[in-house]
């Protein structure tokens, strides 16, 4: 199975993504894990929202998860740079962390809750210097 290549560009936030180190690997999201109580977060956070301590460390998050909720947007908000309609939702990764994300695939119906999905990075719009802006998305796995 070929892993989709990560496009060239600038990440939407520079602390979001761990880029692949070899051609066979995919990218990962970088989150935080509280070393006191174990709660996991995305995006990274300096303070644990559950036990209020400043004892979080960076954690590489799992690449595959399940859809927790989803919708298809037909009317775009103003700041948004992409095409309409588009799919979005929240994906639940290992440790129960929820990722707000775009979703790859059809825009006929929302991706069903529980669908297994895998992380990809994609280009969405450009910055003022003409660089692609890289954002995360998840693609439903088949089979």
């Amino acid at each position, binding site marked *: 199975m070929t892993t989709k290549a990560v496009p060239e560009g600038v990440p939407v936030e520079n602390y979001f993504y761990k880029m692949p180190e070899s051609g066979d690997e995919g990218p990962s999201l970088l989150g935080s894990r509280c070393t006191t109580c174990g709660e996991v977060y995305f995006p990274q956070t300096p303070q644990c929202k559950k036990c209020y301590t400043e004892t979080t460390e960076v954690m590489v998050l799992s690449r595959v998860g399940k859809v927790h909720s989803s*919708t*298809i947007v037909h009317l775009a908000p*103003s700041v948004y740079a992409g095409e309409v309609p588009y799919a979005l939702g929240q994906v639940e990764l290992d440790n129960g962390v929820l990722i*707000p994300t775009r979703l790859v695939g059809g825009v006929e119906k929302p991706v069903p809750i529980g669908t297994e999905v895998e992380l990809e990075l994609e280009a969405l719009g450009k910055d003022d210097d003409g660089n692609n802006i890289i954002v995360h998305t998840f693609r439903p796995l088949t089979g």
Partner: protein
Amino acid sequence: MEKIYILGTGLHPFGRFPDKTYGELGRVATNNALKDAGTPWQDVEMIYATSMLEGSSWGTKVARACGATGIPIINIEAACCSTSAAIVQASFAIGSGMHDLVLCVGAEKQQRGFIPAQDQPHWMRYMGLGTYPSMYAQMMQRHMHEYGTTLEQMAWLSIKSHKNASKNSFAHYQNMPNLTVDEVIGSRMVCDPYRILMIAPTSEGAGAVLLGSEKAIKKYSVRKPIEIVAASHRAHIYDRETILYPPPLLGMVAKDAYEQAGIGPEDIDMAMIQDGMPIGEIEGLEEMGFCKEGEGGTMAVPIKGKDYGRTWIQGDFPVNTDGGYMSRGNCIGATGAAGIAEAVLQLRGEAGQRQAPKKMNTALVHNMGAGIQASIAILKK
């Protein structure tokens, strides 16, 4: 603690008023509230002014429009809970005995389309993730998944809402008294499963609530004052990092309110519930104890053999008798004031063609919105 009463309420119609400023909208609502209460402007001792989008010191614009009198004016922003949060503060001012007459006035001017999700970070807005319709649509999807709530049940909420608003001369939309399920479901898709006829408009307008002590009621011979027996508000609780409502929040606010009032949901005769989109009214009914968990979607569906459901004006538990956010409009800073104004009219028996026939002594006014935050006021005749 002194008891707190609503002496009067007043609204400016909800809709689009490009030629009217915040100050002017607020002045009209304020004067209507003062007239309703029979109190003069110059006796107002303090103002809590609520707006989400207007910014600095907008409350002074209302005072200057009316003729400024040098009183304290505090601006409160709590998204759709703004009016209710202001009432909590006003209840401290009156309850402590420091003030006898306090005005809460809210207004908003808005663009068509999406309410700007100012509480969401840039990356979410850039990726198209940070809008309220998409958040509420995902909550609806989960409710349909967990409890089997249907599109048809959601459509009945829009039908009820627009029928009620057609009898409300202050409502944003008054022209759809006889919507059908097919018309609602067939309307333009915005965020699956929400169609345009299931989504509240962004409205301009204003609302004012004049609060006072027993001393003020006697001084001005106020007719039909309504007591506020509970005013509660909470802003967010961490449950897990999610863009959806934190599940415990509304239950906590409801517990605060029922304990303060010393009553339970079974003692409430009608409710104004946030219905910016169907999930608001559906989950609101469930989480404030007005129906069983999962059954919120059944409450607006016509009862067997009748042409109305339980939460219709003629039902056993009227909800959003003025049309609610969905058709009366969501004028963020004044949405709570509109809910209070309607509850007061209903309790006084003065709601005219949309008066609920049921005998009513108590009303609950609920708001929920960005933050995430939630608020409840309980009114008693």
